[in-house]
């Protein structure tokens, strides 16, 4: 019997997981399936589809909290909080366009499973920084609550945070409480043109170390329109503050050449593109997402350019490298060696065909002691290995 289970509430979800645990039947855990092509391919007879768990449970703008079922589309949540002048501060990216899906399909559960973030990661954190509590079901088929529904809480282990980025291999979240924050009144971007990657990273790090409260720092080697390098620094907030900080930032960066300012609309459009990896979305070549210390971003790219042809851009002040090898090969060994040579970090193969994802470590391999600890943690949540087996690491 191959089945897709579509439970309508957490009790039914619990029933499915209890059965799967008892019968040792592995399940692929899905929200909308928008990130199904990310991670190692999961081959299970059964699918647990959470898309029916889609509703806003509670939203209190003045308390800065939102409780929502895990199968709710992120786009729906963003629309609802936006109507109250609020947002998810961590600016979750949408993998849809990069992975060949339509935009806006991803769910809140998938957002947590992938620990999504965006350009504002450098100021406001990732999903892991804004998740406050959850109701989830372990691979043992036991429903548990962890965290709370208030913005400040240290009662017990921080399981909501620990489950972020676990790609559905530890537990199935059914209800999630998130911190929401007021959206900025306006935003703009300061643009520097024609910088080398090295100079761009210097400028971005200088800006991030100032009191200008930069909320996005990216460098596009081919610019917005393929007409030469552009370095972009985003400023958000109240109009008077944004104007003031723009002038301060322009003074700070006068050694890097002339600056110009983007309109709020152009700026917003640009940052969506940076967030969703649109500059590299065309074609079918592998795409890597690499996190390193910000000041190392340019050196990493310089080293890799000696080894193979690539297209790339930098976000997070140089700390996030989006990279596409142009020969279509994954180059995982060269990339991970280069990361180690520049002080450490991690690389995730976010786009590749299924056979490549089965053959190449999609997630950064871990040292033995850490990998063993991760396996022990997995065993405590999912002793029979029924939740997305092999999604992150073979046999886990």
């Amino acid at each position, binding site marked *: 019997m191959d089945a897709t289970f579509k439970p*309508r509430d957490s009790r039914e979800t619990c029933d499915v997981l209890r059965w799967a645990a008892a019968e040792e039947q592995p399940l692929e855990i899905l929200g909308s399936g928008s990130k199904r092509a990310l991670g190692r391919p999961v081959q299970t007879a059964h699918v647990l589809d959470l898309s029916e768990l889609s509703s806003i449970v509670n939203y209190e703008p003045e308390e800065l909290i939102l409780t929502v079922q895990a199968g709710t589309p992120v786009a729906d949540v963003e629309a609802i909080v936006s109507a109250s002048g609020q947002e998810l501060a961590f600016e979750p990216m949408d993998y849809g366009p990069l992975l060949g899906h339509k935009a806006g399909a991803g769910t809140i559960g998938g957002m947590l499973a992938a620990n999504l973030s965006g350009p504002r990661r450098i100021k406001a954190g990732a999903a892991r920084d804004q998740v406050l509590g959850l109701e989830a079901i372990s691979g043992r088929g036991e429903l548990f609550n*962890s965290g709370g*529904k208030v913005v400040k*809480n*240290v009662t017990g282990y921080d399981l909501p945070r*620990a489950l972020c980025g676990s790609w559905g291999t530890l537990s199935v979240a059914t209800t999630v409480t998130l911190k929401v924050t007021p959206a900025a009144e306006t935003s703009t971007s300061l643009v520097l043109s024609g910088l080398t990657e090295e100079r761009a990273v210097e400028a971005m790090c200088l800006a991030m*170390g100032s009191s200008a409260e930069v909320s996005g720092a990216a460098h596009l080697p081919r610019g917005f329109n393929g007409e030469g390098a552009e370095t972009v620094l985003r400023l958000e907030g109240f109009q*008077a503050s944004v104007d003031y900080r723009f002038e301060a930032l322009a003074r700070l960066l006068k050694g890097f050449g002339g600056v110009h300012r983007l309109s709020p609309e152009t700026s917003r459009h640009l940052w969506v593109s940076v967030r969703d990896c649109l500059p590299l979305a065309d074609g079918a070549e592998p795409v890597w997402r690499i996190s390193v210390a910000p000041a190392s971003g340019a050196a990493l790219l310089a080293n890799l350019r000696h080894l193979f042809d690539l297209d790339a851009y930098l976000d997070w002040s140089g700390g996030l490298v989006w990279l596409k090898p142009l020969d279509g090969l994954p180059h995982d060994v060269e990339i991970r060696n280069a990361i180690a040579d520049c002080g450490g970090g991690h690389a995730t193969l976010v786009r590749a065909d299924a056979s490549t994802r089965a053959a190449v470590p999609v997630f950064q391999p871990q040292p033995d002691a850490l990998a063993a600890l991760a396996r022990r943690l997995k065993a405590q949540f999912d002793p029979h290995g029924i939740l997305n087996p092999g999604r992150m690491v073979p046999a886990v």
Partner: protein
Amino acid sequence: MVAIAMPKPDRSVMDRREEIVAALQAIVPGEGVISDDTEMRPYETDALTAYRQMPLIVVLPETVDQVSRVLRYCHENGVKVVPRGAGTSLSGGALPLADGVLMSMMKFNRVLDIDFPNRAVVVQPGVTNLGITRAVEHEGFYYAPDPSSQIACSIGGNIAENSGGVHSLKYGLTTNNVLGLEMVLITGEVIRLGGKHLDSEGYDLLGLMTGSEGLLAVVTEVTVRILQKPETARALLVGFPSSEDGGRCVAEIIAKGIIPGGLEMMDKPAIHAAEAFVNAGYPLDVEALLIVELDGPEAEVDYLIERVESIARENNASDLRISTSEEERMTFWAGRKAAFPAVGRISPDYLCMDGTIPRKELPKVLARMRELSEKHGLGVANVFHAGDGNLHPLILYDANKPGELEAAEAFGADILRLCVEVGGVLTGEHGVGIEKRDLMTDMFTEDDLKQQQRVKCAFDEKHLLNPGKVFPVLHRCAELGRMHVHKGKLPFPDIPRF
């Protein structure tokens, strides 16, 4: 008095004390092993001073290798270990065990690397919270989380407790400001998490470690994010005729999209105690006093001060002052920052509680607290991190009067149950430790707590690291691992299947 029972000491370990001392001395030479009662005395308690217990032995390692070897020895020999930073825990997180080694990390006191381009600082865990800021302030930087014990508390302890502070609404807790850790498991294995880059590869063990109260591993190195200091800060001091007015004002500030750097409220007893102590000029005829601090670029602060002022006036502010100088801003804060010692002046002893509530429940909680105050026959003063709903009731009692400590503890437990009842939590920033351990079942079900303890089993199967803290009942890992299997037919004929 010991209302909270600790695990029964293991006589067989205590009988081996001399042998354990010798083994530890072979690992940590010189004065790094303390076994003399007089010298161990300073370690018998932390900032929850109502509880005292002499440890079996104190060890002060100086290198990661020593930490690793001590832990491996204790693991192999079934000896419990209580890690300790500066000992400022308000929840008894570092309370020793009679049959356990107390491992002080205060010799790990060096700043290892200051990296301004990456805005990262690498320190050893015994460096104080304020010590990090001191190391980088010459370039205008600071470390944002600022627990009120920041002059003394260690960054390792901050990791254990996920410490907050008055600025946490805007700048986050410890967990939002830590980039990397090095830690040693009870087996002696050394593991590094994160670094100067963002997010972890694999499971977010950095997030799990932060706030784990010394139960999972011993931290030996910490990498934190530093920020450039805001250009300026100004504060408003606003009095209200009722806590409802004050609460509504806070809600409206946030609803208008303003996240102040600090947003503190005090109730009448706290206002009076603070004013009598420091003469900050607080109005005495108000029921609630709010300090709103706005920080950032000057243009922004000036603009927001005006907006907050008008919101406050619309919400019946009966007294309103705006700081015009740095000196005046500090005066506004002086009373709030001295609130605990000020209460200490009007009462021989006090218990500092720490729950979080949904902000909208504040008037109800304060009213119920007044009833509880009468029921238990003890006074209470409240200071409140109003922005994030974190409430610090200070229960006044006299330890020399028979029964008062017990009454104060019962009052405190009632307050925390009330916090949970209105949708809040037992602790916002002080941790569970021993203090709130037995209340965990008021907030969590047995399944909730079992899943948390299974995390412990992945790190420390023998329950040797800091046992007796956080969890009211210690389940053996083998017992937690058992599955209750219901084989047979699918128990869910109705669930849609395709």
